């Protein structure tokens, strides 16, 4: 697949789409931070521009048959020469469209949500920084540039999570997110080095085409797995997933933008970007499939017991990401990407609706929300139900089609276990989604008077102005539209992704039926325990308390990491090193000083006033020298 040099208009437009958000960040952060309005205008204008460019490119390049690549030399040192530029092919165009539209919607939504927050300008500058790094990541032409923007995305997520840094928990969550993703990036970086040293060049097209040929299978799998570590870190997969639920400390629009649709999807995007390389090594796909499944099941169990609305959606994001990786691991490139697209839409919608509720009721716990009459807010309730249904995979909505695509790919695999895991995951997803929806629709003891305490969970702000509510609901409606429409675009997407030559995906009617059945069972279970008139709204897990605390404590992963860092890193290593530093090295040096001083003191005895001793010494020496020469 040789790359075609794009026309100059495309070059300038794409570079502008990449550069403008960065310019906005610099302008807002350094210049217009004190004055709010100009900062908002700059940030929204740049985001709108990138959105327009993205959609124009998508439409304009709809029929292209070869990727467009433009690259300029950014840095060269020794044999590592790193280019900067962009690569436009169906995958990056689709992802670019998703990223820019959701970031624009979130910026619009934040006008309402963050109104009155003292650091709003700084918040928008960080959003622009994130937009720049995400766009840079999506259109990156070589793996190193992708890695650089990958790190920048991590940085902006750190800044945004810890936005309200007066709250200790927020700064703690930010630090945890950064360090955990950094741990993943460690593997990614090593993978890049291995690829660079063995392949010489890191351009994505080069990797996809020659990697399988040039690298030995073992080396290919090793580098694929190492790069996958980055995905595990960034998309919060099995070992490193505890940072995402904590990342909910950040403002909700941030959770909607970063921690549901775009940033965490970067990992899945990376895998699909290098899919030909991954497809070449079966073991890498197997590992991906395994980790995806484990994460999916683990996270959905955690979501079943969470009481905080954002935590539920965070766990659901982790599990859906696992689901996407299962799709990719099962060998279907289209399933992963399709689910990623639909998931971005409805998960963002879920978060934004929860944002409205949090903004309105000031509490994150959806049981209190519903008791305070959450069901009276018309638009968010309808949107959250649509999105919830899409998440669970109810028929007409986007979620159903993409889940069905993934299930289809799982069915292709020879071992049946993966399919069963997928179905179980679908069941659990349906259960915890509708658990939340039923609790929201049918509160147990609804407070009669609908007093609205407009307090916000963490910052003061005078009653939600109608403008704010209007803006927020506008964003919700647009996203709801997407959730509904996206489902039907499946076949157009698959054609687009495979350069107009879509592979024939076998269609199992029995799979379709079982999927629908499983979802209905999940909904019924949720209805039985939460929706029914006399339901106790406690969930069947109440009967197994041990299991419930296990899920609530995130399978004790957090405690493991806490113990690891506290005892092993702080306790053993740094104390050991400080001790060594203080005692051994310093000790040695001070010892030497004391030694010299002591020796000096000792020698002073020789200088006793007694003349005769000196004489003794002198004569004795002469005599001994004489005798020595005699004996010689």
């Amino acid at each position: 697949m040789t790359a075609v040099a794009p026309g100059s208009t495309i070059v300038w437009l794409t570079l502008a789409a990449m550069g403008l958000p960065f310019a906005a960040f610099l302008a807002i952060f350094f210049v217009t931070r004190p004055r709010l309005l100009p900062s908002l205008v700059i940030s929204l204008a740049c985001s709108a521009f990138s959105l327009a460019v993205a959609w124009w490119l998508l439409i304009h390049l709809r029929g292209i048959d070869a990727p467009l690549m433009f690259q300029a030399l950014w840095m060269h040192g020794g044999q590592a020469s790193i280019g900067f530029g962009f690569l436009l092919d169906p995958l990056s165009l689709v992802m670019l469209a998703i990223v820019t539209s959701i970031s624009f919607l979130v910026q619009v939504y934040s006008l309402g949500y963050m109104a009155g927050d003292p650091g709003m300008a700084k918040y928008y500058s960080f959003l622009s920084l994130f937009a720049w790094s995400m766009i840079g990541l999506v259109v990156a032409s070589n793996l190193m540039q992708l890695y650089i923007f990958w790190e920048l995305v991590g940085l902006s997520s750190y800044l945004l999570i810890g936005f309200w840094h007066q709250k200790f928990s927020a700064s703690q969550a930010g630090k945890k997110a950064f360090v955990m993703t950094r741990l993943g990036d460690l593997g990614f970086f090593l993978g890049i080095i291995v690829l660079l040293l063995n392949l010489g060049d890191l351009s994505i097209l080069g990797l996809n085409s020659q990697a399988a040929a040039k690298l030995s299978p073992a080396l290919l799998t090793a580098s694929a797995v190492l790069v996958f570590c980055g995905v595990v870190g960034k998309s919060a997969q099995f070992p490193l997933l505890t940072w995402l639920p904590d990342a909910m400390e950040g403002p909700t629009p941030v959770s909607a933008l970063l921690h549901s649709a775009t940033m965490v999807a970067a990992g899945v995007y990376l895998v699909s970007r290098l899919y030909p390389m991954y497809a070449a090594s079966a073991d890498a796909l197997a590992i991906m499939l395994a980790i995806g499944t484990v994460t999916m099941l683990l996270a959905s169990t955690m979501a079943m017991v969470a009481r905080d609305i954002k935590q539920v959606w965070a766990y659901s994001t982790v599990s859906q990401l696992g689901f996407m990786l299962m799709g990719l691991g099962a060998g279907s490139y289209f399933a992963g990407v399709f689910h990623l697209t639909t998931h971005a839409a409805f998960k963002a919608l879920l978060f934004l609706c929860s944002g409205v509720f949090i903004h309105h009721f000031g509490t994150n716990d959806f049981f209190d929300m519903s008791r305070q009459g959450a069901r009276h807010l018309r638009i968010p309730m309808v949107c959250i139900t649509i999105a919830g249904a899409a998440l669970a995979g109810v028929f007409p909505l986007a979620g159903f089609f993409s889940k069905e695509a993934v299930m289809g790919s799982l069915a292709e695999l020879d071992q049946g276990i993966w399919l069963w895991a997928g179905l179980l995951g679908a069941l659990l997803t349906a259960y915890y989604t509708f658990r939340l929806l039923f609790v929201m629709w049918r509160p147990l003891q609804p407070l009669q008077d609908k007093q609205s305490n407009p307090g916000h969970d963490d910052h003061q702000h005078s009653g939600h102005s109608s403008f704010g509510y209007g803006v927020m609901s506008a964003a919700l409606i647009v996203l709801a539209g997407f959730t509904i429409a996206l489902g039907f675009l499946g076949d157009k997407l698959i054609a687009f992704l495979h350069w107009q030559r879509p592979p024939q995906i076998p269609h199992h009617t029995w799979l379709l039926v079982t999927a629908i059945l499983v979802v209905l069972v999940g909904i019924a279970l949720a209805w039985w325990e939460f929706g029914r008139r006399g339901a106790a709204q406690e969930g069947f897990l109440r009967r197994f308390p041990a299991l419930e605390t296990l899920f609530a404590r995130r399978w004790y992963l957090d405690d493991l990491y806490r113990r690891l860092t506290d005892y092993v890193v702080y306790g053993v290593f740094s104390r050991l090193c400080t001790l060594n530093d203080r005692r051994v090295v310093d000790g040695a040096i001070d010892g030497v000083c004391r030694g010299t001083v002591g020796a000096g003191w000792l020698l002073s005895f020789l200088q006793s006033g007694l003349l005769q001793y000196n004489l003794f010494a002198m004569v004795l020496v002469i005599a001994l020298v004489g005798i020595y020469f005699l004996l010689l």
Partner: protein
Amino acid sequence: MSPAIAQYIRPEVVAYAAFGFTLVLVFGGALLAVLPKNIIHNVFGLATSLVGVAGLFIFLGSEFLAMMEILIYIGAICIAIVFAIMLSQPMHLQIPKRYRPKLIFSFVVATSLFISFHGIVTRTEWEPALVRGGDWEVARLGRLLLTRYELLFELVSLVLLVAIMGSIITAAALGGDKNPTGDEET
């Protein structure tokens, strides 16, 4: 004198006897100067030893030096020492107690030096100078002192002058000391 004794009074025997007597004088005096605790015996020992040394000078062929030796060493230096003894009061009463290890230690050091130097002396082959003058006349000595070694002569006198002045000043500095005897002080 009976013939038995006569056969001993041959000139070389007399010479050896005389040499032996000088050696006895020298070493006896030296031991006397070193060993006894009483300072007066030491001075006396020194004097006898120097007389012996003067004798040796005669054996070594320069009578003038022997005379000089007796004049300077015994005449001047020993007398000066005696004066010092007298001036520093009844010190001969304070017999400083002998310090045994020091004694042994210095004996060891002295003998080790003796052994090493003796080894050196016996090992080296002393060759006499190629041309050797025989003129031992004192007049020549005087002429040389005032011609070739004139500087030496001046130097010695200068040193002596300075030494004398120095000692006077050191002693004079103490003149101001009201109670030279220092008895009353505690």
